């Protein structure tokens, strides 16, 4: 279990549309890499190419020492030692829980005398003991999702692929599922490739996150780096948690914006006088009566973690933390807790 996955320069085209353009990344043994992006950006296509459900036009996929796919080499999906959790679960409606797991074990060539032990072990791990003879239609949403992960892991694959597994789950089920996945990962140390469009989900589970933007890997980094140092405005937008505020680079590197003058970035992205975009994270903006910046309050609400105020700065709407609600139309002062990433507009 847990092999290194190397994906090199993947290209894929569907008709006239180029879905992937030179995607490369690695997943270290035991690591969870999340592929994050908006719909149609190429993340599920990448997962399908890794799984062997589709062929790339160019590029290479290797798992450990084995080349799964390269010019002149192709290992079909059923011979790649992978497990996969599908969006919408995709359980076989005509098979019981036990039959699902037996099917995988048989297909993977696990000796018959090991089946009972493996199945019991797996059902216990996902809390499905006693449900072995149930059909998918007889399972609740959470049980069905746990069966899908049991199916993916029962043969102890080299790597686990997850294709938006939480997309159809409500909030409590999603929390349960992510907790179960984290526990199983801690116990079994498998590597995983996790496709999602939800940054919070990616940050909760992944060691590193690869952000896709229109078929290109825009940035691969830890959640912390992605939040504080996004490589481009597109990455900042996908990662979320803030807004892009236009401004102009002033003498000395400071940025003139509708909020006021922002501190100089560590590295100037453009020449003095040029237009730039500053990524202002919600968590870095705080209402402070003595703050150097100014904006117009539009609304305030409590979001469970504290008060959140929506501010208007020029044509941009920003969010900032505050200790108390603010009246609509009030001009407020605020401070920036750290210099924001600045991009050339």
């Amino acid at each position, binding site marked *: 279990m847990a092999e290194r996955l190397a994906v090199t320069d993947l290209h894929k085209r*569907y008709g006239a*549309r180029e*879905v992937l353009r030179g995607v490369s990344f690695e997943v270290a043994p035991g690591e969870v890499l999340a592929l994050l992006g908006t*719909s*149609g950006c190429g993340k*599920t*296509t990448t997962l*399908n190419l890794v*799984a*062997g*459900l*589709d062929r790339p036009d160019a590029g290479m996929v290797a798992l450990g020492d084995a080349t799964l796919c390269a010019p002149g080499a192709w290992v*079909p*999906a*059923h*011979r*790649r*030692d*992978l*497990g*996969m959790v*599908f*969006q*919408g*679960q*995709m*359980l*076989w*409606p*005509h098979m019981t829980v036990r039959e699902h797991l037996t*099917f*995988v074990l*048989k*297909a*993977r*060539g696990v000796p018959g005398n090991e089946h009972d032990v493996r199945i019991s072990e797996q059902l216990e791990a996902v*809390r499905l003991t006693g449900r072995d003879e*149930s*059909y998918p*239609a*007889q*399972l*609740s*949403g*959470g*049980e*069905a999702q746990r069966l899908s992960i049991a*199916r*993916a892991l029962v*043969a102890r694959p080299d790597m686990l*692929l997850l*294709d*938006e597994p939480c*997309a*159809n789950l*409500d909030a409590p*089920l999603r929390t*349960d599922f992510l907790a179960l996945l984290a526990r199983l990962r801690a116990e079994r140390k498998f590597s995983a490739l996790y496709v999602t469009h939800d940054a919070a989900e990616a940050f909760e589970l992944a060691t590193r996150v690869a952000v896709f933007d229109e078929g290109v890997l825009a940035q691969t980094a830890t959640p912390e780096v992605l939040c504080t140092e996004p490589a481009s405005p597109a990455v900042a937008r996908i990662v979320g948690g803030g807004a892009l505020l236009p401004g102009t680079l002033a003498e000395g590197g400071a940025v003139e914006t509708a909020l006021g003058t922002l501190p100089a970035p560590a590295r100037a992205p453009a020449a003095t006088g040029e237009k730039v975009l500053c990524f202002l994270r919600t968590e870095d903006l705080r209402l402070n009566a003595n703050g150097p910046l100014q904006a117009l309050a539009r609304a305030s609400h409590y979001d469970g973690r504290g008060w959140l105020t929506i501010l208007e700065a020029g044509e941009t709407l920003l969010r900032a933390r505050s200790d108390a609600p603010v009246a609509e139309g009030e001009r407020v002062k605020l401070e920036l807790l750290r210099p924001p990433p600045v991009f050339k507009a």
Partner: protein
Amino acid sequence: MNDPVKTPGQPPTASPHAPPARGGIVPLAKFPFDGSRIFPALRKAYVAVLVLFLIGPLVVLFIVKVRAGVFDEFHAPDAKEQERLAGLMVSTVRTAALATALAVLFGVTVAVAIYRARGWTRRILGALFPIPLLLPPAVVTIAWTHLIGKRGIVAALWFHFTGVKELPLSMYGEFGTAWCLALCWFPLVTMPALVGLRSVGPLAGRAGAVYAGRWAVFRRIHVPLMLPYVSAGAVFVAWLALGDFEVPLVLLTNNFPMQIYGAIKSLEMGLALYLCAPMLAAGAAVLLLRQVLVRGQAAATIESRWRPDAPGGGHGGRGWSAAAWIVLGLATVMPVASLLHQTGNWATFQDGLRSAKAEILHSYRSALEGAAIMAALGAPCALLLLRLRGWRRTALSLLVFVPLMVPGTIHGLAWTQALLPTAPGRAVLGSHLVLSLSDAARFFPICVFLLAAAFAALHPRLLDAAKIAGAPPAMRWRKIWWPLTWTGFLAAFAIGFALSAGELNASILLSPVGYSTLPIRISSLLHFGKDEMLAGMCLAQVVIALAPFLAATALLDRTLEVRLG
């Protein structure tokens, strides 16, 4: 843990492994053995066989025979005869249109009732609705004649109470013919309408209801969304009704297909072909009309996912249920009860069975073989139809539809003419095989439609999941593809069997000497046999068609029960 119970059949919203096709349609599950890569030559050979099987005989009839000088000694009918024929054609088209309208009314009513019903009502209605399809039009007409015909029960009661011999509504006209045909063929509308209702779902209507009244929602939302589905079934009904002469045969009325039959019987081949032309034009016009009606929406019909476990369309629907029960009662209970009454007693029924023992066996044999050929040959066709795009798909659809578009009489004539010139052909023509082959070709489109619906219901990701699990192609076929699609084969086989067992229009021309089927025997006894004996044979025909269907339904019901919990 109190997880909310998942709605059975909740539509998966998986992002498929290829980008969605036109209109956001999720791609179809690939057959575990990817024929497009492994067997391109085999695919071409299959299409060639299909062309030969489905339109080969017609090509022989209309091209080879015409070139061979079949029109050399033919004299076109005089003006008076032309006028009479034109009148008959108009009457035939009017009857077919009326039958189609009634079938749409009945079919949609039953589909909506099934869609909206819950629990047992839904299961019973779902199991019963195809039964009228199993009753040959001749049998249904005989039964209805016994009820409201000149010597029928209702007429006797009417005379008893009013002293008037004639009923206000006569069976012996266009309405009576259309009524019987509609009662036989309306399940062909119910099937696609159900697929449509389940694909479209209740949300579109509910969304519309926020902004507009009931009528506007019906006209602007429901009708356009359901039109491709309902019209697909209506086209089948219109074609079958256009070409039917079983009902006029029973009612002693006349229509255009009967003229063709008469011309063939009197060996006037030129006249028969001359008369075929307007019928073929009418068939093509029906298809054209449908294409115009559903411009741009037709692609959704066949790719829509048939989900037997899909949730119903909401609540209530008692009125729809009541209407559906009435329709099913008129189409099944009334004819059977009428036949039982006419048969009189068990002994007459047994006599009927005994005297038609050979015909019953022949019917079973031909229908079994025909259904098997249909299902076996139809499966690759359904897969191809679902996979192809653009002009290839249109060409294949047209090819598949041709045998049903052509009236049964012409179909029978074409097969005779195609087989006659060669020694092997004559051997086939002299054996029972000709009936099996002809039935298989004639009802091929209905079979392909059922199979395509079953294949389309299989989500591609279910096979992907098996692939990722490590299952090789044979195992994926055996453990996933087949268990999830065999019900489609069963349905296609059962319906194919029933339709073949009751086929008369083509088989009356094709049956070899000394080899008769039950519908042929019934038609020969129509006006010369004892009524009780005829009714007994009709009951035997009903039993023949119902037995395998009920067995298939029981099997399907058990399977679905297991799957749905």
